[in-house]
């Protein structure tokens, strides 16, 4: 047998784990489950075209069915791996099968609003996606951005307050990126111009934003709530026709303007990073700034610009908490989402689509636990909350893949110092 590369061994190991999980879920959720209870999946939310209203099936049968699908998918993935082909689709089906097998077991005798589950997952992912896109922008050019949390919170605060004062969601949306940009400009000035340690700096900025917003919330927003903290919120906009597509429509195309902006941000960043001159230069200064400098690229200017844009993206994501959500600002309402965005960035290996997938996964796990909490299941819903973080730890320790940050991430660039 030929020697496998490190990446191949890693993929084989991942496949192996997936196959074991598939077999286990077939056995535990399928075979060993007492029969007799049904699970009901709902597929409609609104007045979209109906493909299927709901699906009632014996919980045991469903678990068995999805378990067997995941086992088969694992087997196919393994054969594809042996043949040297890509295994993406098969392993995707395999993991989804395991998930569904579990869900059918956990929700025995209950109703699961399937479309709602996914829609909620997307909504919970929105700030994570904005945050991780901000991370991609700044870290790909070589500046560690721990301050995503602060940028989100600043965006949330400022957009909430401005929207409340002006009664305009539009103005709220416009100022949010500026607030995020302000924080990231601080990051850029100290990290790039003064070479301060970026981890410590980012952390300090987060604490700073926590402190300022807490103070203003207590002294201004609570006492004068009706003028300062009762902003309007964005309404959902149904994209004509698209929103009527069964299942997919209500999830993707019945959202507020922020979510549509998010789609644009993802596509634009992914395109720019890998297809344009700006992207090539950004990746170059993040990997080997000395080389970029030697061909006439202004390393620190490009980094500065990217960090500022990153702040705008995160700030816009912050607006999702206030004008995009409940309207009023609440103390520390980002609640660590900026750090989870950072985890999504790492889990997604510093690529835009990787980070989006990770953010969606985290959002799904988050929503699943709240849905399971509401309908009441055999396992504590808090357990589900652990899953994304567990997955991140596993990813970062190199089980799913060797995670390689941009080579110069976190290293200030000064001409004349060796790289």
């Amino acid at each position: 047998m030929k020697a496998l590369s490190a990446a191949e061994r890693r993929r084989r190991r991942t496949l192996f784990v997936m196959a074991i999980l598939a077999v286990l879920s077939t056995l535990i959720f399928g075979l060993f489950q007492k029969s007799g209870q049904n699970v009901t999946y709902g597929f409609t939310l609104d007045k979209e075209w109906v493909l299927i209203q709901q699906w009632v099936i014996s919980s045991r049968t469903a678990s068995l069915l999805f378990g067997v699908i995941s086992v088969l998918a694992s087997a196919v993935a393994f054969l594809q791996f042996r043949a040297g082909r890509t295994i993406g689709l098969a392993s995707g089906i395999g993991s989804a099968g395991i998930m569904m097998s579990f869900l059918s077991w956990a929700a025995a005798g209950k109703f699961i609003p399937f479309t709602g589950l996914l829609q909620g997952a997307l909504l919970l992912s929105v700030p994570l996606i904005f945050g991780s896109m901000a991370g991609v922008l700044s870290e790909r050019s070589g500046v560690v951005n721990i301050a995503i949390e602060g940028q989100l919170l600043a965006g949330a605060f400022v957009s909430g307050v401005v929207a409340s004062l002006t009664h305009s969601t539009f103005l709220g949306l416009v100022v949010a990126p500026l607030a995020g940009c302000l924080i990231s400009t601080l990051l850029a000035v100290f990290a790039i111009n003064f070479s301060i340690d970026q981890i410590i700096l980012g952390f300090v900025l987060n604490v700073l934003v926590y402190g300022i917003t807490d103070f203003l919330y207590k002294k201004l927003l609570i006492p004068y709530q009706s003028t300062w903290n009762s902003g309007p919120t964005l309404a959902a906009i149904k994209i004509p026709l698209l929103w009527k597509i069964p299942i997919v429509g209500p999830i993707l195309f019945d959202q507020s303007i922020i979510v549509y902006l998010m789609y644009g941000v993802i596509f634009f960043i992914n395109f720019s990073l890998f297809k344009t001159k700006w992207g090539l230069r950004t990746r170059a200064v993040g990997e080997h700034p000395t080389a970029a400098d030697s061909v006439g690229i202004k390393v620190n200017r490009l980094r500065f610009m990217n960090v500022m844009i990153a702040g705008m993206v995160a700030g816009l994501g912050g607006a999702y908490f206030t004008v995009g959500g409940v309207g009023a600002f609440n103390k520390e309402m980002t609640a660590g989402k900026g750090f989870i965005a950072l985890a999504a960035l790492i889990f997604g290996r510093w690529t835009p689509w990787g980070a989006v997938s990770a953010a969606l996964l985290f959002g799904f796990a988050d929503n699943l636990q709240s849905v399971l909490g509401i309908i009441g299941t055999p396992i504590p819903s808090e357990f589900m909350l652990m899953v994304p973080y567990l997955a991140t730890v596993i990813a970062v320790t190199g089980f799913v893949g060797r995670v390689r940050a941009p080579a110069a991430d976190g290293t200030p660039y000064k001409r004349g110092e060796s790289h």
Partner: protein
Amino acid sequence: MSLELRGISKSFGALLANDSIDLRVETGEIHAILGENGAGKSTLMNIVYGLVAPDKGEILVDDVVKNIKEPSDALASGIGMVHQHFMLVPVFTVAENIVLGHEKSGFAGILDLNEARERIKKVSDQFNFDVNPDDLIEGLPVGVQQRVEIIRALIYDAKVLILDEPTAVLTPQETDDLLKIMKQLKEDGTSIIFITHKLREVKAVADRITIIRRGKVVGTASPDASQNELASLMVGREVELAPDKGAHAIGDVVLKVEGLTIRDAVGRALVNNVNFEVKAGEVLAIAGVQGNGQSEVARSMVNLEEHVEGSIILDGSEVIGKSVRESLHAGIAFVPESRELDGLIGSMAIAENLILDLHDLPPYAKGIQMSPSVVLAEAEKRKEEFDIRLQSVNDPVSSLSGGNKQKVVLARELSRPVKLLVASQPTRGLDVGSIEFVHKRILEERDAGRAVLLFSTELDEVLALADRIAVMYRGEILAIVPSGVTAQELGLLMAGVVHA
């Protein structure tokens, strides 16, 4: 295109790196700049390339004064540079690296690499470079990466090409290839500034030689000058290039290695069934092109490798299975391949680095307390003995030059009772003066009856020091030959050719 430098001066704090340097490079000439490490060659070239601003002086291209403030100005004036540490992004392809900074884009700002691909192919074919524009840099051998740098300079119309220590990272074969390429480029009309401290290469290709010492031009020479003349100019005193190997008595076997196999984490054998022995008073050189398993063998001598099979017997007792510390204390002095990474702790004081191996033992420590005065006294003593040039033994070791760092490593390793000296690439990156010192010291150890195991990729060094030479190729010892072998024969063996 000609390049002229007039009165270039640059100081970094109190250090005068360049002291009114004048230099003229003619069209189609290979002009070598010879100087020891720290002589100011690299600073001078960084000034020419716009990476460092000079305090004084001017740069003339074709007798016109040019204002070069940025690398882009240098490129625009037709000056290209191949840096000692390559300026290539490892995760980019050849084409991406070459367009970087000069990108062409088409519809919607999409990068267009096609033109670059074609030009790379054209240059690559013209000079037989064998470079594929879509290969990832990190997968390419060092010699090929260097050619990518040369292609980049040529594509951007460099008429003066600066090569900064280009052979420091190359194998002997790659070096020969590069020297050929330099001659080809010269015939094509390109002027080349060749920065080096390797005399053999200078004599092989240079048309003229300028020698720089301590920031000043100390003379020019023609390539007909003897190596000894050049070396003396460079160092400023007489140097002995080929150390005197006196007669000596060879004693009993000190080190016996049998069936040594070293695997990587996946289980592939990096070193496969290697057998050799070293006697007291003998230098066994293990020669080979970098990456043929020598580094692993060297590291296994003090148990720095995992997945080791076979036996390493030092003076009758097994080394494998001991801790690194036990191996060192069993009588092995170990000079690692990279003194900066594995030999020294850069940010710690010279005095501390000198006693790293014994820091917790008397007289340097009493119980849990260190004895700084003893440490300092010892450092002063070793400074004299090993001629370490330093300002204060309390300075961080990273402030020293390469040669002096290596002296610190040697001073530490040879201050224990030693039976076997394992020296891995002991003169890599050192200047002539330091090489002379290290070679002398190694031969002194041999003459004092110690066994020496020398790992080196430098043919000249192997031939000068070894009593016997083992050549490693793809993890195996291809042959063990006596020291009388010629450089050609040795070169062939290193390339894996065993003749009948």
